[in-house]
């Protein structure tokens, strides 16, 4: 019996090893491709005999990844800050004051979560052109902000309702503090766990966003990583090695962050999905 159990355990470990290796295949292929010269026709499954590290420099310069990294960072960071600020503030009255108006507004935010953002694309695009906001960081920030506000409000409101005792606010108000002071001094610091989740969810999705970016950030100065990569792919279909180098560099920061903060990523991303 004991021997059989041991065998099953080894079998399962073998399966886990197989699963791991299988999931690593595409990354491995990307790495071998990125390290080879364009005229190196050796098997993609083998590492190159001579490493062509200049691929990375060439891809970085040609795809203008430096600019793209900065743009992506600016857009992601500003959206995240605004999201936390506007989202938590909006959630507070919706979680606390159950007036008819607030109930309706909360329902409105929740219903908007169901609308696939792309279905509003046609009129949105026209509107953005008309107000002259094409190719600006601001429009990317506003679009992403709008897309993530309903989920953010939903998560904050749920947390405030279930974990923040009302007595806390009353005490502060008795001392004569105004609503904003009560909110930012007393409530907001207690929202840290949800804030962390919201920051992780929104940063991952906004950093990776392509659907909005491709429509509104077409000029080179404002393009994000995904847009830069897509146009680089279009120009270099005959040199996949360069594309692979660019793809590898573009996924590196998020991957490193994930490997170090894995626990928080998994918890944050699944708390968003579970409730969303």
């Amino acid at each position: 019996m004991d021997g059989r159990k041991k065998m099953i355990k080894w079998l399962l470990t073998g399966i886990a090893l197989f699963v791991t290796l299988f999931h690593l295949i595409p990354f491995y292929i990307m790495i071998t491709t990125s390290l080879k010269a364009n005229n190196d026709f050796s098997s993609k499954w083998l590492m190159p005999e001579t490493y062509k590290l200049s691929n990375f420099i060439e891809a970085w310069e040609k795809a203008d990844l430096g600019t793209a990294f900065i743009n992506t960072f600016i857009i992601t960071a500003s959206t995240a800050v605004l999201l936390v600020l506007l989202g938590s503030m909006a959630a507070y009255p919706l979680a606390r004051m159950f007036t008819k108006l607030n109930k309706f507004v909360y329902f409105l935010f929740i219903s908007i979560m169901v609308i696939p953002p792309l279905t509003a694309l046609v009129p949105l695009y026209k509107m953005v052109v008309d107000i002259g906001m094409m190719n600006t960081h601001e429009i990317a920030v506003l679009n992403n902000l709008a897309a993530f506000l309903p989920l953010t409000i939903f998560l904050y409101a749920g947390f405030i309702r279930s974990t923040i005792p009302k007595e806390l606010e009353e005490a502060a108000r008795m001392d004569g503090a105004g609503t904003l002071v009560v909110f930012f001094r007393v409530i907001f610091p207690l929202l840290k766990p949800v804030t962390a989740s919201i920051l992780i969810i929104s940063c991952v999705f906004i950093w990776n966003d392509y659907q909005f970016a491709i429509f509104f950030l077409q000029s080179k100065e404002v393009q994000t990583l995904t847009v830069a990569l897509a146009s680089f792919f279009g120009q270099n279909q005959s040199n996949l090695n360069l594309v692979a180098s660019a793809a590898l560099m573009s996924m590196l920061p998020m991957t490193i962050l994930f490997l170090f903060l894995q626990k928080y990523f998994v918890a944050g991303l699944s708390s968003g999905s579970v409730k969303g």
Partner: protein
Amino acid sequence: MNEVVKEASRPIAKSKVKRAPRLKNKSLWWMYIPALIVVSVFILYPFLNGIRVSFTDWNGFSQTKNWIGLEQYKRMFQDPATWLVVKNTLLYGIGSTLFQNIIGLLYALLLNQSIRLKSLTRTIVYLPVIISPLVMGYIWYFFFAYNGGALNDALNLFGLDKVNALGNPDINPWIIVFVNTYQFVGIAMIIYLAGLQSISKEYYEAAEIDGASAFQQFKNITMPLLMPAITINVVLNIIGGLKLFDVIIALTGGGPGNASQSMSTFMYDLYFSRQDAGYAATQGVLMAFIILILSLFALVYFKRKEIDV
């Protein structure tokens, strides 16, 4: 943190004599006005306006558009492309959901055992979740590409013919399902793993005493108690799959022809390549409708199967 909360709230609970001054503005609506404006201007207004545009022949850039009633809807239902695209979208939505849940559950069952490599496997399976779907599409492109792809390299090694996987309309929608499943199976796995770990061991011990087989235990204990996790995963995966865009752009661009187009990429194509904004808006309305119906259906269906413990 709970300690702090308790600490701070204790004295107030005792002194009920003094009451907090009542708020004048009971809705505190000014606090959600900024969020409401952003969401209204960038989602609600364009969405409602899109419904209006779907009744016009607008080309996307001219200042004039004609009201043509239900013409675009008639056109949509008679357009064979619509049905192909809806079929693909359903394949992406339902196909990915099926695979992600079955494989995700199998992975979770595997990693719920006490085996080596557990945390490594979990990390690697989950990793693609945080990578851009567009980049993930390109990464798999290096594998599937007809010229210079790793798949054909391997087939060549075994003396088999090259396959044009991404250019074959019979195969490429399935490759898109595969890549989407590969990328997001980690989410399903994690949710199932959490679900499995929350099931009390006592149920299994009791079943063991009653002589229930492993399969009976799975069917009568594990599955019913996993229903909440299944609901979440199914709804999540359906919505994600139906909205698929980036992976398709990276792998096939929707081609050949419209063969692998989803409703999202089709809309993009109609609007930007074919200057057919009115029709694109009509397709958008259909897409919103399909997503809404399917996710509501999934939610209600699986909710009814949940049991309370």
